[in-house]
């Protein structure tokens, strides 16, 4: 290998260097974001919950309104229970939830809302009738609600939102008793 005919000893041009670093950093940032999303839901305890739409199932509206936003419920304590008709542990807590609802429904201070996660309407209505659920229920259309509240995508999960719209408590898995539900709700005071 002779020196004399050695071709161009060019270093990497500036534009190429900039592009390489931008792409690299961008890729790492993207993946870092993915990591973060994989480990936390968007809603964090102590922070206000981002707003979302609720389009209720027929027959399970809130006070007759077929559609509303979460923010419409400000001033009340909101208990959001995420369930699915194909979820066996959900069936364990369903009677307790309905019983607890009976205790709170007249107070007009605490609202129970069921969010049906990735389900068929037929399965949903079957489940709701089976457990004689009477509190408002809405399907999680486009999985929007669960991507805000429930990145883990597990059911059942229950979220406690206080009167100012701040997330106060999360329960993962089924409640064991009505008493536990009451203790859970007490955290919002």
């Amino acid at each position, binding site marked *: 290998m*002779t020196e004399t*005919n050695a071709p161009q000893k060019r270093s990497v041009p500036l534009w190429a260097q900039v592009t390489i670093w931008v792409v690299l950093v961008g890729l790492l940032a993207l993946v870092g974001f993915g990591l973060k999303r994989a480990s936390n839901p968007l809603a964090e305890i102590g922070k206000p919950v981002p707003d979302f739409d609720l389009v209720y199932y027929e027959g399970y509206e809130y006070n007759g309104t077929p559609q509303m936003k979460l923010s419409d419920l400000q001033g009340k304590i909101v208990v959001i229970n995420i369930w699915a008709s194909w979820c066996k542990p959900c069936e364990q807590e369903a009677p307790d939830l309905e019983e607890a609802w009976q205790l709170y429904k007249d107070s007009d201070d605490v609202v129970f809302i069921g969010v049906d996660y990735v389900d068929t309407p037929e399965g949903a209505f079957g489940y709701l009738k089976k457990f004689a659920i009477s509190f408002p229920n809405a399907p999680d259309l486009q*999985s929007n609600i669960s991507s805000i509240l429930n990145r883990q995508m597990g059911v059942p999960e229950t979220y406690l939102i206080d009167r100012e719209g701040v997330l106060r408590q999360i329960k993962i898995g089924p409640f064991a008793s009505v008493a536990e539900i009451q203790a859970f709700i007490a955290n919002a005071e």
Partner: protein
Amino acid sequence: MKKILESKTLRITLYALLFAVLTFAAYTTASAQDTAPTDDEVNAIAKQLFCPVCENTPLDVCPTEACRQWRELIRQMLAEGKTEQEIKDYFVANYGARVLSEPPRTGFNWLVYLVPPVLILAGAFALFNAFREWTKPKSAEAGSGQDEEAGASSDEDDYIQRLEEELKNRK
């Protein structure tokens, strides 16, 4: 007997009756088919959708209870006469764009389809540019320097090259 059959009105009545019976039969068999879509028809649509809950599993092979319900839902919708596109649209409206096996070609998603061909063409362009530069004639020194290097490392190929020379000569 013959006289009765020759009666025009009677013949018309008989034909009308026959026609009515046949139509009714056709209608009922057609409806009977409508109410029972086969597993294959369900699978044909389920194959193109992904399970909304499971990770990256097509709907026709997903073993969960939820997927079973969704396949039954597809069967029901087929029985109601819905088309494939309507069923897909329903799933997208309810569970999001991720149930489709490819992103819908709207807005941001165009990037998914356009970036690879653009990059590949850019690569081809760069390669051809490089070719043009490399096939420029160079000085004689460089040429012989390379031959030596090539010769030294292709010892095992010598034999084959000579074989090939022989082949060429044979022909």
